[in-house]
């Protein structure tokens, strides 16, 4: 049913002062993108308008981002609801990246405590100076063996890894072509490198071919193994073929696929049988290993070069000893317990079936990242509030993190979830969507 427009008023728009209701309506139409850029003479010009909007926007739904978690990010969590100061207890947690449940494994925690006792809180130096501890060396060696690569370089975060790899390799006048859904760290790496940037239509080898055409200099193609907002896999075989045909190097960001996909858990590159063909393998420790940090794996020459030129690593303190020791133990568990990956994929299949069978729109997801597409920027916050009241912890995702009216809640499935927990959560999601007319 299309709404009917009231007859146009004879008063001019400028005649009427905005009433509180009109202001509320205006604020509802605003989002972060309105405050990103505006002409003026003072860098602080945006601060007051942003504050004005935020004082409305936060209680209207933005408070749902970054509410304090009062427990470890296990499969059930307690959250302090900042809107009313209450404590929501025992929510099924579908919001954390803890894909293998390793962040709270007792042996991981013990390893971290022991290393902190021995080495102290921080590394107290850049990894190129005094910050490279024997623990870092051990993690590098074990990770290189796991990835079956000649070399590995550690970074303080996944963001820093992408920044360091791309800006370490590419220069002004070079070309980086990335999938349009590439993570912000990939985009920022391109900006830092000052190379030319082109973005190809998501997973389209045909558009990649178009974007690579007519450029004769150094070229790097960047894709992600699993896309973090949609949970679909890179169309790697076709993208690889096109990249090679154009003489481009190819880099894969396995932040959401490393330690999960492929026979040995090396990632989506291994899943497609292209592990030995991809030039640059990037990964993170904050998702499947439940810690923090990032890394690049590749040839000895690549690692040797980036060691000198990846500035975000050179000019940051090395990863903390407690984190590194926990990561070593977590990696050992990944190697020793391949059944963890198996359990994760079973959980993913189970949850995907529950949702799809109920008519829930989960897009093209083929992984543990499952978007539940709401496609309504106006209702996404109230739907997440309903989900929390129903006992499920999820974060809203809306424009500009995704396209306008491509809003969603994003489920992160873990191997640690029980089927009963997934059934409980799916039941709540389906009930809330039905109440809102979003599934049968």
């Amino acid at each position, binding site marked *: 049913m299309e709404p009917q427009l009231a007859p146009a008023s004879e008063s001019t*728009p*400028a005649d009427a002062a905005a009433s509180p209701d009109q202001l509320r309506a205006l604020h509802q*139409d605003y989002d972060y993108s309105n405050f990103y850029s*505006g002409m003026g003479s003072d860098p602080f010009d945006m601060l007051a*308008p942003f504050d004005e909007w935020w004082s409305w926007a936060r209680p209207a739904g933005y408070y749902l981002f970054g509410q304090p978690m009062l427990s470890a990010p296990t499969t059930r969590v307690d959250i302090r609801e900042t809107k009313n100061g209450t404590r929501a207890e025992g929510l099924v947690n579908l919001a954390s990246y803890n894909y293998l449940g390793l962040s709270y494994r007792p042996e991981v925690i013990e390893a971290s405590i022991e290393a902190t006792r021995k080495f102290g809180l921080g590394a107290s130096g850049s990894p190129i100076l005094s910050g490279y501890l024997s623990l870092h060396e051990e993690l590098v060696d074990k990770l290189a063996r796991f990835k079956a690569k000649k070399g590995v370089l550690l970074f303080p975060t996944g963001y820093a890894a992408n920044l360091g790899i791309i800006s370490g390799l590419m220069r002004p006048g070079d070309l980086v072509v990335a999938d349009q859904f590439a993570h912000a760290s990939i985009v920022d790496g391109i900006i830092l490198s000052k190379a030319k940037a082109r*973005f190809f239509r998501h997973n389209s080898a045909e558009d990649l071919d178009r974007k690579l055409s007519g450029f004769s200099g150094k070229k790097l193609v960047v894709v992600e193994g699993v896309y973090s907002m949609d949970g679909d896999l890179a169309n790697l075989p076709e993208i690889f073929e096109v990249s090679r045909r154009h003489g481009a190097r190819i880099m894969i960001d396995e932040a959401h696929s490393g330690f999960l996909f492929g026979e040995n858990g090396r990632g989506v590159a291994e899943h497609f049988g292209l592990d030995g063909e991809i030039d640059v393998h990037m990964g993170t420790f904050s998702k499947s290993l439940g810690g923090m940090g990032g890394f690049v794996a590749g040839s000895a020459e690549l690692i040797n070069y980036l060691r000198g030129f990846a500035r975000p690593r050179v000019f940051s303190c090395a990863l903390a000893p407690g984190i590194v020791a926990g990561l070593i133990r977590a990696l050992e568990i990944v190697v020793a317990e391949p059944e963890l990956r198996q359990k994760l994929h079973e959980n993913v299949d189970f949850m995907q079936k529950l949702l799809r069978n109920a008519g829930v729109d989960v897009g093209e997801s083929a992984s543990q990242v499952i978007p539940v597409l709401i496609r309504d920027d106006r209702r996404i916050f109230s739907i997440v509030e309903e989900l929390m009241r129903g006992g499920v912890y999820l974060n809203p995702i809306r424009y500009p993190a995704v396209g306008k009216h491509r809003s969603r809640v994003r489920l992160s499935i873990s191997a640690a979830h029980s089927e009963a927990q997934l059934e409980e959560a799916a039941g709540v999601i389906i009930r809330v969507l039905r109440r809102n007319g979003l599934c049968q």
Partner: protein
Amino acid sequence: MSVTRYHFAHAVNAFFEMPSGVAGKLLPGHLQPLELRHDSAIFAVTAFDFTDSLVGAYQELVLAVIVPPMVKAGGVFPKSAFFPFLLGTSTEASRKHAIARWHLPHHMADIDLDFDVSKDGVQILVHESDKPILDMQISVHDWTIVDQLYQCFMIDADKRYKVDIHMQGRFTEHEEESGSLKLHPHAMTANLSPERIATYPFREMWMRDGLQTFEELESI
């Protein structure tokens, strides 16, 4: 304050990615392109079907680059700001009016816009006699009634102008990337590097049965 009103049946608007370098060449020195992402500016195509105005009914094609708006605390934020670098209209009277009153640059021959409207979307074919200019197609999301503010920037020799434009009507928008654009070789598309412009919109917008109100022209 005197305002100028234009009633329309359709205002169909879509945003396409274009290289920032190409966009920069279409802008005067005091304006910068707003970037969707690094090195990627926004090319806006708008097709109007005006039903009533000071110069009667006519159709109009607006080719523009999206730029940052001028903002101030306590004011209403524009939905977007744009610099129209070329317009085409279906009547001489509408061209003369827009050039004289708003300093808008025009293709100086009559063009026609065919609106093929369906429940799911609209297709627009723009042509000058039998010479095609562009084909654009968009689809719909939910309809809602809106009153939106836009900022339009213009130049005339060394003079710079801005006008606030209010758009009221039934409105739908989304970013499902389901539309399309084909630019044909024509004088109106000659400066665009069509091979560098996306063939699908990242944002699709359509306003129906609405009112466009121009406030007074401001020198800036």
